[in-house]
């Protein structure tokens, strides 16, 4: 095809034109081989601008278009759509980015103009060898998988289910609810967490579109966007839930007591247990690790007392396979272990507790019925210290990031403590107070001014026990005064860390995790709920520490992304994917190792290994092409020949 390329140079108002001499760019490109037309316009993306391109394509019989303008991220789709309206293949249109890559970052008009000309020439070289491509169509399974049944997973599952699509919800614990179910009241409105959460849990349990796999984990994932196959391990509960009516006699009679995870070890549960009374589903499981029968071969009391014959000790883990089109990962968080904070006792002081433990002490359904008692002797503490940034904002020793919710929940804790113990004295130690949510600053003001919570700006350097009291050493950084504060109990605002299983899960799902172990979004601003793997989305603290409103908002956003996918008949995939020249491929397998999307595999053809590309999975990142030791891979419309010509055009 003899190239007949049109170049359209945009002023972008003054964004480009003030630094780049657009007229000179037009003149310089006019005589360039393959270019048959060039002109400029003030806003190429506007209606008249697009019309200009369309009419020139017709008049000059253009078979390729270069728009010298802003970033392709912004307007590549716009202009490709423009050219396709008059019958030009959209992939014969390319953007030469002379704004972000040129005018915005330079001041010398002469040099910037020279550079803009080079950028345009190199893109002209690219367009010359661009093939006409068609998007790749992929069928889509309109069912979603939600991993994690905390508030994020619950919200996402409900949104999708309410829109009429089936949802598979996988929760590793016996009950959904997550950490929110453990909370007493929530900031800044002080409404009861249970009261707002449990109706949603029940809704999930009863929703006709939600299939709940509790006490289950994602074992393996294959497939790609729109067409995932997920293998789920249903952990043996040793209770036939179809027979169990939830009478609770088994739990009553079980002789083994184990620290309760739900109550953060403040009290015990039995070896056959339901994590908490409002659990969904409200069915017990046997904790194999601690069950007397599994440990010694004797007991089976639960089996004897169950009049429904629901206990089955011979149960094994089972596996189910589900097909889904989209996945939301909402695996939540854990608290940074107190054992890592040696200067605060590393867990040896019973009355130095973490925030979730204090939530249980405040909760009406908690071990103390909501009365604040300290764990060591059940006395009501008269002075309580609340310490923020424990493990957070400490790049040298612990976590570099801000855990985001601690300032607010410690304020809430101090306030609720004051409500429960009116003559008590809460003291909050802080570095800065971060109260950037709606109504948050007012909440902190209220704690300070109306509830008379003492705030001391300073990091606690040491906590030790002395004579039945806890001593905190700190410096008040506002007065510069060293402090020694004696209290009855300490609540630590521990750093929020990702759920430990997330690393393995991320590997299975082939999604990225950041340096702190949180899941990485596709773009921090413009694609905050998507992962780089198409069809997999994020919600909640698995992505970064966040509070309940943000979590719910992100969960709904992820759900709407899923629904956006499901609203289409089939998925369209960018055709600029990797290709393999089978006559050159030696089947060395380097591409398989390299591919971050699992799109490359080796096939044995006539007894020889040869690499394949799964076009639906390929994101066109180019890793395999750069890595192919034999030059047997090429990327569509980014062929080596094109790249070399582009580089030559720039270096000329």
């Amino acid at each position, binding site marked *: 095809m003899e190239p007949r390329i049109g170049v359209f140079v945009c002023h972008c108002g003054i964004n480009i034109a003030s630094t780049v001499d657009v007229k000179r760019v037009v003149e310089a490109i006019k005589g360039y081989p393959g270019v048959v037309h060039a002109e400029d316009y003030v806003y190429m993306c506007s209606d008249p601008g697009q019309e200009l391109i369309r009419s020139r394509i017709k008049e000059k019989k253009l078979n390729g278009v270069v728009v010298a303008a802003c970033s392709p991220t912004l307007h590549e789709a716009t202009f490709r759509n423009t050219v396709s309206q008059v019958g030009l293949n959209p992939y014969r249109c390319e953007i030469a980015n002379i704004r972000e890559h040129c005018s915005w970052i330079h001041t010398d008009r002469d040099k910037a103009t020279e550079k803009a000309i080079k950028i345009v020439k190199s893109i002209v070289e690219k367009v010359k060898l661009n093939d006409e491509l068609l998007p790749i169509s992929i069928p889509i399974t309109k069912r979603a998988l939600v991993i994690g049944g905390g508030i994020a997973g619950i919200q996402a599952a409900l949104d999708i289910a309410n829109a009429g699509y089936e949802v598979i919800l996988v929760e590793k614990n016996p009950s959904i609810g997550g950490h929110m179910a453990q909370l007493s009241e929530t900031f800044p409105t002080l409404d009861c967490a249970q009261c707002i959460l449990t109706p949603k849990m029940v809704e999930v349990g009863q929703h006709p579109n939600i299939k709940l796999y509790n006490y289950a984990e994602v074992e393996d994932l294959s497939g790609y966007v729109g067409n995932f196959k997920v293998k789920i391990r249903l952990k043996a509960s040793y209770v036939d839930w179809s027979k169990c009516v939830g009478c609770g006699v088994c739990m009553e009679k079980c002789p083994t007591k184990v620290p309760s995870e739900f109550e953060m070890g403040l009290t015990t549960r039995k070896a056959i247990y339901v994590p908490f009374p409002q659990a969904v589903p409200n069915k017990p499981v046997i904790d194999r690790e601690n069950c007397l029968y599994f440990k010694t071969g004797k007991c089976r009391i639960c089996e004897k007392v169950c009049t429904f014959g629901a206990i089955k000790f011979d149960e094994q883990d089972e596996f189910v396979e589900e097909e889904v089109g989209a996945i939301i990962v909402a695996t939540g968080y854990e608290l940074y272990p107190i054992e890592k904070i040696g200067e605060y006792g590393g867990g040896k002081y019973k009355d130095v507790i973490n925030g979730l433990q204090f939530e249980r002490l405040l909760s009406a359904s908690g071990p103390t019925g909501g009365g604040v008692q300290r764990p060591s002797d059940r006395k009501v503490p008269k002075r309580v210290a609340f310490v923020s940034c424990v493990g957070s904002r400490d790049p040298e020793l612990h976590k570099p990031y801000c855990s985001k919710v601690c300032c607010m929940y410690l304020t809430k804790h101090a306030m609720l403590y004051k409500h429960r113990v009116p003559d008590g004295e809460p003291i909050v130690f802080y570095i800065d107070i971060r109260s950037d949510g709606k109504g948050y600053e007012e909440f902190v003001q209220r704690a300070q001014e109306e509830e008379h919570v003492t705030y001391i700006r300073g990091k606690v350097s040491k906590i030790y026990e002395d004579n039945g009291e806890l001593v905190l050493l700190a410096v008040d950084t506002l007065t510069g005064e060293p402090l020694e504060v004696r209290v009855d109990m300490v609540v630590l605002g521990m750093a929020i860390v990702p759920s430990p299983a997330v690393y393995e899960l991320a590997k299975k799902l082939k999604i990225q995790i950041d340096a702190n172990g949180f899941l990485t979004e596709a773009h921090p601003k413009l694609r905050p709920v998507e992962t780089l793997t198409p069809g997999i989305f994020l919600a909640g603290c698995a992505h970064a520490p966040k509070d309940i409103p943000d979590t719910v908002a992100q969960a709904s956003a992820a759900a709407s992304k899923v629904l956006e996918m499901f609203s289409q008949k089939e998925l369209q995939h960018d055709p600029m994917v990797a290709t393999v020249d089978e006559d050159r491929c030696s089947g060395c*397998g380097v591409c398989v190792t390299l591919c971050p999307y699992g799109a490359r595999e080796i096939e044995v053809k006539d007894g020889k290994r040869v690499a394949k590309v799964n076009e639906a999975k390929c994101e066109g990142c180019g890793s395999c092409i750069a890595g192919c030791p034999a030059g047997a891979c090429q990327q569509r419309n980014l062929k080596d020949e094109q790249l070399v010509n582009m580089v030559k055009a720039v270096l000329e």
Partner: protein
Amino acid sequence: MGKPKFAFYWCASCGGCEETVLDLNEKILEVVDKVDIVFWPVALDFKRKDIEVMKEGEIDVAFINGAIRTSEQEEMAKLLREKAKLVVAFGACAQLGGIPGLANFWVRSDIFDRIYKKVPTVANPEGVVPQQVVEMDGYKLTLPEFYDTVKTLDQTIPVDYYLPGCPPPPDLIMNAIETILKGELPEKGTVLAPDKALCDTCPRNETKPEKLSIKDIKRPHEVIIDPEKCFLAQGIICLGPVTRSGCGERCINANMPCRGCMGPTSEVRDQGAKAVSFIASILGVEDEEKLSEEEVQKLIDKIVDPAGTFYRFSLPASLLRRRRK
């Protein structure tokens, strides 16, 4: 019409390329039967002047082995180019620079210093090094110039075809000769060997794991090498994926990894750079995120002499060609 005229010449190389012609064994008789060898200094007593008197194009094919590192080699290459219809770069040194090309990591003075003064077995108290011109008893003695930079044959004269390998395998030589004699010549510039990488014919290709990953690098003398398993899967650097096949897997069958003598496939511009790229692609994979910078560096440091390993045969043909002077 007389028999086609062949010439063989030897530039900067070890001599193995000359021997490999003899490795044709009894087939050499067939060749000699069909062609006239008009120039072959290593075997036959023809002189430069015999070539000089020839007409342009009188030689049908000149097989030139070795890289170009002296003025004499350059002159001879140019002379043969003038007299020959076809020039075949014979062997890795002529094609890519080969082992002599590793000299491009130094300059001439470093090399002379080492060879004539510092090598432990050399006694040269006066520090004599070769000079281009020396006057002695009123006579002027000259030596060819020793260049700073080793070049490939095609950086010196236009080359029509390439026979890769160190040395080229006899079957490829025979195949090339037959092709030439039949006149079924491929496009100029073609490497007369298969264009797939060595893994394609490697008997160990099947033993590769699903995901190739090197977690620890071993040199061949440090381990007992499994004679059936892919070298890379054993943590031994093998350049098979980045090297043209057609060698007959001689090294592999001797339980040694590929060192890359057949050069890259036709789609690859720089064999060494590709080798770095592909080794980096499979190094420490899976646990990569967990490795600290120091651990990564430690793993990379286990590649002894990376430049020499990856550019063993191809430095003068690479994009950079040599170390900066």
